[in-house]
């Protein structure tokens, strides 16, 4: 339950934070929330990963859908003949890694105090 709540808050806070903060704000958001929710170190990375991946991948997927895949088709071609949806996966993974690292840091930090 706690993990799920962490996930929901991370997505919400992450979404807001990214409107005006640099891309790596997701690390801080997941970190602080992981600290507050006191996630277990063992699950923290994957919880952060899942939340951030959902946020990044979901947002990218939404923009891609509204755009009918026009841009992702061209950018996919640019980055090495990838179909557009692969870019959504990459986006989710990049977001996930940093969300996961943030959550892990928050959890480890909590152990220190």
């Amino acid at each position, binding site marked *: 339950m706690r993990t799920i709540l962490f996930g929901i808050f991370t997505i919400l806070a992450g979404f807001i934070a990214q409107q005006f903060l640099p891309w790596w704000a997701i690390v801080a958001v997941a970190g602080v929330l992981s600290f507050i929710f006191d996630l277990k170190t063992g699950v923290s990375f994957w919880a952060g990963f899942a939340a951030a991946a959902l946020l990044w991948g979901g947002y990218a997927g939404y923009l*891609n859908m*509204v*755009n009918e895949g026009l*841009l992702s088709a061209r950018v996919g*071609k640019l980055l090495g003949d990838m179909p557009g949806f692969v870019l959504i996966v990459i986006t989710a993974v990049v977001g996930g890694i*940093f969300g996961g690292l943030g959550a892990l*840091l928050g959890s480890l930090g909590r152990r*220190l105090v």
Partner: protein
Amino acid sequence: MQLVKFFTALVATVLLILLFDWHQPFGSPLPALGRFFNPAAGFWQNARSLDTPPLGQFQLPGLQQEVQVVLDERLVPHIFAANTTDAAFAQGYITAMHRLWQLDISVRQVSGRLSEVLGERTLELDRLQRRKGLVYAAQNALVAWERLPEEMAIVQAYSDGINAYIRQLKPRDYPIEFKLLGYKPEPWSPLKSALFFKNMAQTLSGGNDDLEASNARALLGEALFEFLYPELNPRQSPIIPEGTTWDFQPLEIKKDTTGAVTLLSEVIEHQSIPKPNRFNGSNNWAVSGSKTASGKPILANDPHLTLTLPSIWYELQLQTPEMNVYGVSLPGLPGIIIGFNEHIAWGVTNVGHDVTDWYKITWVDEAKKRYLLDDQPREATLREEAIKVRGRDRPVVDTVRYTIWGPVVYESAESPYQDMAMRWVAHDTPENKPFYDMGVFLRLMTGKNYDDYSEALTGYDVPAQNFVFAAKNGDIALKVNGKFPLKRPQQGRFVQDGSFSGNAWQGFIPKSQVPQVRNPALGFVASANQNSAAPDYPYYYNGGFDDYRGRYINRRLAAMENVTVEDMKALQLDNYSIKAEEGVAALLALVDAAVLSATDRQWLEKLHQWDFRFEKAAQAPVIFEYWLRETYKQTFDEVYKIAEQDSIAVLFPEVWRLIELLEAEPEHPIFNRQATKVQETARAIVTEAFQTACADIREQYGSDFNWSDYKATRIAHLGRIDAFNSPILSTGGYGDAPNAIKRGHGPSWRMVVELGEEVQAWGVYPGGQSGNPGSRFYDNMVQQWADGEYHLLFFMQNSADRKQPILSEFKIAPR
């Protein structure tokens, strides 16, 4: 232990962040991946529609009164403003909204500032732009603009409009190219508009062959040079019809000036700098009501330029109490360059006059501070050019020396005392005039009749254009208009000695004496970059002139009666070429079919059957191209030897001259190849060339080939990002046919205007209004253009006009 774990994770995270925030990591071309993939600010944000403002109503500082903008179904803005400067402001704003990166990169390119964002790979390009003095030229133009506050106000308002848009942007809104290349937009300024204007001057009036012609003459000898490079193609049908009377007293040209008339006869040991595309040209014409079905004049124009995405043109309508005008603009300049209003229409093609001459500089000292002029040392003006290069701590500094001729562009490594300076009309500060470039186009946009058109052109200098004109009242006209140097015969054809001031141009042709015609008896006027006037025009000029399109257009227009708009579209889309008509006849007359193989004979038969149209599915045009090219190479082996074996820049003869020689002098020794022992004539060359051509085609394509596949036309991205190119298009067309579609070059805007009671116009360009590769308006007109379709242009009568559906509208109020 916990502490170690924490810090390990922390360090790993920080390192990863740095890695993903690194633009072009490890020397790769990749953008910073974290920034780029971040859906809230990276490239995904360009998938949002950025083509329309988020609000239907907003305020901006800098406007005087409210402006209304209607975006039609093709994203063409229709701007309704209370005055000219507000219209220019809105034009700047909306141009920036759709074409911001194009604005940025084209000015970087012309001013030699690409390396600032692209790094080492563009350093030589930048250095050349600085040496050619493009910034110097733009500063001089701005000096003139600044003399007139009302003109400067237009340029300033346009600039303010662009900057108002830029100020609204968050990094997430930047065009995707900024994100890929990792930099951000910087403010616009009037100087940048002047730079953009000079970019057009460079593209259209930067052509010259002085160096190549000097070398050809020195190495081939006077007699062979005169034989291979006649100045005049006797078959050209000039822009201003033969028989036009020159009712003016021409200025006198001094034929002999002290010690100066010596033509240099030495070889100029330089490789030549890149030149503008020699195909930059265009068609335009106007047909008088006496020849049209409706009894009203029709005007047509299609400028041929390098085709890019986004396009060089941006379509729009401007309406103020003084004007209601529609047409295409150049992103970077306020106003409309080619267009029409409720009274008149106008269009342009390029004038091929050589207005770029080269002068050999003889230095007095090794430091190259003083050069020789009329036996006296003269100080050069030194201008330091600091080129910022991304990835370098300090800018690269280059010193460009300015002489009385202009900047020293060529510096010789081998002979430290002999360089070459460039004399170019586009460098000059315009003399005092009642109005300048902004005033020219404002006068055309607000023009009502011939007098307005004629007056407007008196202010226009560079790049020289053939301005075609038609008015509702029935007038048609054409002026070869620009700043043309007064030259002695042959002057400027070759590199000249810069140590004699007598080698300078002797002034300029007065605007009232440029070749021009109004309402000729023929019932039409037309230009396609051919010679300006018949040889009886009293002034000498040289340059690069088209040989075939102009003849064909004149031939067709002369034959046409009851002309309709559809006829004019069909002529713009006509794939017929006189080059093929005459070239094929000449080649077929000489080829010895008896020695050909059976399959080669079948291919020869295709040429016998050909109608000389470069249609997309035809095979004959491919065979013709290969055959003519091979014949050319074998015939002019003397010239190829200089270019290829000796690596010396040299002029190549024109194709019309080859065809003329095939027709008239097939026994001439020029057809004898130097490398062979036997004596050859054109017959042997042509036959062998055909066999080689067939073998080459077979090797490359087998027997399954056609003109469109061979030509492989596609519209490339302006910044050479291949993923943003158009696909390869299926099209006909040929450089020497009216429909001059080539591989990456061709009709960049097709327009036909009928000046009836209600002015109606049709147009299309190979691109889209939006520069965003994620927009559906990025390339939405490309296929229509390739298929030869036109749009009925929505010339709105007022802001409430809804005769065509619209996409959206918005209002900008002053703040």
